[in-house]
Every structure is written in structure tokens, then in C-alpha cells.
């Protein structure tokens, strides 16, 4: 400890909390291969370090330089590390301990966010949104997708900042939060269920006129052809392996078909 926390700095009293939370939404603006989220991390934590600006500002400058170095984690849960690192700086922890804390958080926060958000909540919300669209909700289905996703996005970001700030160097405890752990267990199956249900629902929605009351050329024949074609497409792409993404396979097939359609006798 180097001098203890500045007087009056409590969670409620942190003047830069709202600004730091707002800046966390832009934590990847200066993303680079060298420092990854480091610059955004430094930018987000800066308002929380302002109580260190007294006495010539040396502690503030040292802390800011340290917090702008390499950092990599999932952007939504980086708030946990920002809160914890800010608290550690204000508590006057030794610089090497703070650097170890930042380094130690990269892996767990990356895995947590990737599993919880990218491989879980995002596809779950997409699936749910598609189901609503297919059920006739139209643009409201899209609005529901947007709202659902962002309730968790904003909630996780603000909770993480608070939890990190409260825990400081003992932030590992925040990652064991039962709500978070339960979320990790539930979100994968939920996403799989939603995406699985969305696929047949949207394809039938499109075939039946996409909510525009249009009767396409032949209602059910293209559906059967589409399901068979989709099976062939997915199986072929799967057999080739992950080197071929769904996008590259689609470009290849659609490109050939467009040329074929132009040369049609």
C-alpha cells in the first residue's frame, strides 16, 4: 500500500463512475494488434484515477501510463478489470501487483465474455428475434432482439464496474458470482434451442410471403427444394471443414448461380 485510499473515495463518491461507464462502450475504438484494448482501457479508467492528480500528479501519470498498456479481454466484462484496477491504484497497491492483476484477468475475462455473450447471449437473442419475426411481429421482433441483447450488455458493463471497484485486488471473487455462473450454464442451451427453432420458422416465413402478403411463384415446392439444397450445401461445406466459412461457400455458390442465370437458354 502506498499511502492508502484518498479521503472520501467510496463507490458512491467516485465522481468519474458515470463517465468511465460511458467510455467503456468505446473500449475498442483504438484496438490494435500490439496493445489490443489497452488504449481503451486507459481511456475508460482515467476518470476514476482523477483523485490521484494531487501532489504534482505523479501518481496519476504513473497509474495512467500503466493502465494504457496491453490488455485483452471481452469488451463487455472489461469493466470488471477497470473497476478492480482503479480501486487498486487508489488503494495505493504496489505497481507490480497491479500489473499482475491486469495480466491475470485477461484470460478469465476473455473466456467469460466469449462464452456468455458471443457464443451464448448473442445467438440466443438473434434466434429469439428471428422467431418473433417469423411469428408475425415484424419490426417489433427486431426491436425485441435489440432490447434483450442490450439489457444484458449494459447491465453486465455497469455491474462489472461496480463489482470490480468493490473487490479491488480480490476481484476473482466477483467472477465466482452465482448469477454469472448460472448464466454460463443456461445460456448455451438457450442459444442452441432458440437458433434451432428459428431456422425452420424463418424459412417458412419467407416462403409464405415474408409478412408482405405476397404469394411467391410456387409456395411449397421451393421450400422442399430449399431444405434439400440447404442440406447439400451445409454437408458439403462441413465436409470441407472450417477452412471454408459459410460466407465463402455462399459467395461461391451464389456467384456460379448468377452466371448460370445470365446464360440460361
Amino acid at each position, binding site marked *: 500500500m502506498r499511502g492508502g485510499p484518498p479521503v472520501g473515495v467510496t463507490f458512491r463518491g467516485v465522481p468519474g463512475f458515470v463517465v468511465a461507464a460511458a467510455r467503456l*462502450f*468505446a473500449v*475498442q*475504438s483504438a*484496438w*490494435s*494488434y500490439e*496493445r*489490443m484494448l489497452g*488504449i481503451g482501457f*486507459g481511456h475508460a479508467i482515467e476518470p476514476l484515477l482523477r483523485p490521484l492528480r494531487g501532489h504534482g500528479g505523479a501518481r*496519476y501519470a504513473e*497509474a*495512467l501510463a500503466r493502465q*494504457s498498456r496491453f490488455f485483452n479481454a*471481452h469488451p463487455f466484462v472489461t469493466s470488471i478489470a477497470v473497476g478492480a484496477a482503479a480501486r487498486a491504484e487508489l488503494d495505493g497497491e504496489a505497481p507490480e501487483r497491479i500489473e499482475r492483476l491486469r495480466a491475470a484477468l485477461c484470460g478469465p475475462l476473455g473466456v467469460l465474455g*466469449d462464452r456468455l455473450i*458471443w*457464443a451464448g447471449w448473442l*445467438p440466443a437473442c*438473434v434466434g429469439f428475434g*428471428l422467431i418473433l*419475426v417469423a411469428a408475425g411481429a415484424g*419490426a417489433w421482433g427486431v426491436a425485441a*432482439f*435489440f432490447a434483450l441483447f*442490450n439489457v444484458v450488455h449494459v447491465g453486465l458493463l455497469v455491474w462489472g464496474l461496480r463489482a470490480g471497484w468493490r473487490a479491488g485486488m480480490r476481484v476473482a471473487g466477483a467472477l465466482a458470482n452465482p448469477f454469472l455462473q448460472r448464466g454460463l450454464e443456461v445460456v*448455451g442451451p438457450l*442459444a*442452441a*434451442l432458440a*437458433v*434451432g427453432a*428459428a431456422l*425452420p420458422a424463418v424459412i*417458412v416465413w419467407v*416462403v409464405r410471403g415474408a*409478412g*408482405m402478403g405476397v404469394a*411467391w*411463384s410456387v409456395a411449397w415446392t*421451393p421450400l422442399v*427444394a*430449399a*431444405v*434439400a*439444397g*440447404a442440406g*447439400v450445401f*451445409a454437408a458439403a*461445406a*462441413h465436409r470441407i471443414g*472450417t477452412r471454408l466459412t*459459410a*460466407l465463402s461457400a455462399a*459467395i461461391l455458390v*451464389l456467384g456460379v448461380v*448468377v452466371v448460370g*442465370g445470365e446464360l440460361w*437458354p
Partner: protein
Amino acid sequence: MTGGEILGVTAVGVLAGVDLVSVPQAMTARPLVAALVGGWLMGHPAVGLLVGVLLELFALETLPVGAARYPDWGPPAVATGALVAERAGTTVTAGIWPVLLVAVLVAALAASIGTWSMHLVRHANGAAIRRYTDQLERGDPKALIALQAGGFVRDSGRSAALTLLTLLPGGVLVQVLSESWRAPAVVAEGIVLSVALGAGALSAWRLFGRGATARWLLAGLVAGCAGVLLWA
């Protein structure tokens, strides 16, 4: 498309483009949202929604994980939603399918270009950071603000370029190729649906087809099929 419409679509394309990584990652970059807004800008949100649903099936595999390279669907989806809505006019008929086929191809190509454009922006960010190394080591907050702002401006420029690329040369391609399409519209319809559903199924399989989530994916498929049969 008028100059004002191009400007409006490009502005929304920039918002969708920066959303993917820079700020705020609220998922306006997802085709479901971006294409709907593109169609709405041209007065036909229902067509935008159709484009968004189709492109979303391709984008299911896009998970913006850290340093990985992934396609940027946001700006192409806004532009494609607007292009198809413009071509559809007020009455949507089966003739829209060749337009959709070419538009989906154009969006997919632009999304691939988006992958590389993001890579360039990341390198440019790295070069800017190296120029500010001394200030950063001195703990100068102005350097952080300059770098964050610079990164945002670069990403905005990238997104605008990607939107305009989809809208202008892409728009010409959509017009020329869909007008000279000679096969029946049902062929275009079958192919677009096959490839979109195939891409969605492949992505779902890659995401959830192994381990504990596989049975939930299967349960979802069964529930979806049952729901469709009951609904019909």
C-alpha cells in the same frame, strides 16, 4: 437513388459499421437491424426486414471475438436493404427474387471486403499508437483521447467506404445482373433460400452441434418444425 438518400444510407452505414467493434457494440451492425433500417430509409421496411432475415442466416457464424478476422455485415446490410427496397418499388412480386439473389451476393462480397478493411484499420491504429508512445509512457490523458478519436474516425471512414462500395458499384451490379437474369424467378428463390438456410444450418451446427448443446439444438429444430406445422 437521390443524393440525399445516398447520404442518409451512408450515415446509417457508418453507425452500423462503427458498432461492430468501436462503439457501442449494441448490435445495430447485425443484418437483422441494419437491413431493416436500410429498407425503412427507402420507405419499404418490410423488404428491408426480408433482406435482414436472409443475411442474418449468413451472419450467424459471425462472432466478433477479439483479434479474430470476421466479416463486417453492418454497412453492406444497410446498403443492400436500401437497394432491394428501391428496386422492389411499392408492390413486391416474385420478380424480386433475382434482385435478392444478386443483392445477397453483393452483400456477401462486401462483408468479405469488410474483413480486410478492419484489418487495415487495426494496423493504422497500431501505427498511431507507436507515434504516441512517449506521451503514453508519461501518462498523458490527451494522447489517449487523440488515439480513441483517431480510431473512431478511421473506423467511420472505413464504414462509409464500405457502405458506398455496396451502394454504388454494388447497386449497378444489382441492377444490371437482375435485369439481365433469364432463368425463372423460382430458380433464384430456391437458390437464395437453399444457400441462406444451408449457411444458417452450418453455422448452428458449428456453434452448437457438439457437446451438451447438441441435444438442445435438435430440440429447437423439432420445436421449430412443430410450431411451423401447427401455425400452418
